[in-house]
């Protein structure tokens, strides 16, 4: 199966690889995994006091499409509010990267990583 140019670009030059201190109160961490392929994804967001995502980092163990999906998402969420970020749909990711049907689950993983991170942020800041 051939990867699209955008997938290859993100795979070869992944944006925002790394992480933040998960104990920092302004850092939200989303951990998700896909049992079908064993991929694991960690997405971390640095959120300002008014709920804007200032920075994002990821670490993904998986195929090219999973790495590209998470790399793309770190670019997309920057500058968005957390409420705007959760509205990113896996179909947007799949379309942007031209993912074939067998790789749709990689985009689902990335969407769920955003949701998990936002949930983590909300539970951290609920008090």
């Amino acid at each position, binding site marked *: 199966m051939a990867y699209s140019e955008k997938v290859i670009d993100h795979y070869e030059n992944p944006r925002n690889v790394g992480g933040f201190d998960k104990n920092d109160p302004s850092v939200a*961490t989303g*951990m*998700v*995994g*896909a*049992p*079908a*392929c*064993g991929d*694991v994804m*960690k997405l971390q967001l640095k959120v300002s006091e008014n709920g804007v995502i200032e920075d994002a980092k990821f*670490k993904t*163990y998986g195929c090219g499409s999973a790495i590209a999906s998470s790399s793309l998402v770190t670019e997309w969420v920057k500058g968005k509010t957390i409420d705007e970020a959760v509205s990113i749909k896996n179909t947007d990711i799949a379309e942007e990267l031209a993912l074939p049907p067998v790789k*749709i*689950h990689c985009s*689902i*993983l990335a969407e*769920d990583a955003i949701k*998990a991170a936002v949930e983590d942020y909300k539970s951290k800041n609920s008090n």
Partner: protein
Amino acid sequence: MNFFELFALPVQFEIDLGTLSTRYKTLAQLTHPDKFANAGSAEKLMMVQKNAQVNDGYQVLKNPITRAEHILETRGIELKHEQQTVQDTEFLMQQMEWREQLESAQHQNDPEQHLADLDSDIGVQSKAHTQRLSELLNEDSEEANHLAASELRKLKFMAKLHKEIELQEEKLFDI
């Protein structure tokens, strides 16, 4: 298609692999296309399909992960093509850590030992999940089946890790 019925085995996770293999050989021989070289085309087609089923069934039942998947499928829980993500943070953190250890193997003084240790850690954990899976599948209640599905998902991550270790070993030692 219930493959346990095909091989006349009780629907359970713990099966006798020797019995499975013996019955597979018998059924594969009985349905072998060569035996039906002179049969009519309808019968030939039927036996080819039967033979394919026997082969599929053997592959599914031989492997503990696909066997458990098949049991859950007969109970109405479909895992094979699911796209659901796992969000058990603690479990996934551990997976990440293992992946990092695997990644760093080539920079260790003794990569072979490093990989062997990692594989043995994963083996211990896989065994625990398999044990729990087996108990839950035996229980066969709605709740137990859903818990079994979640153990099975974890086992799939473990199997993937084990495979990655093997690949790394091949790369490092050119086996």
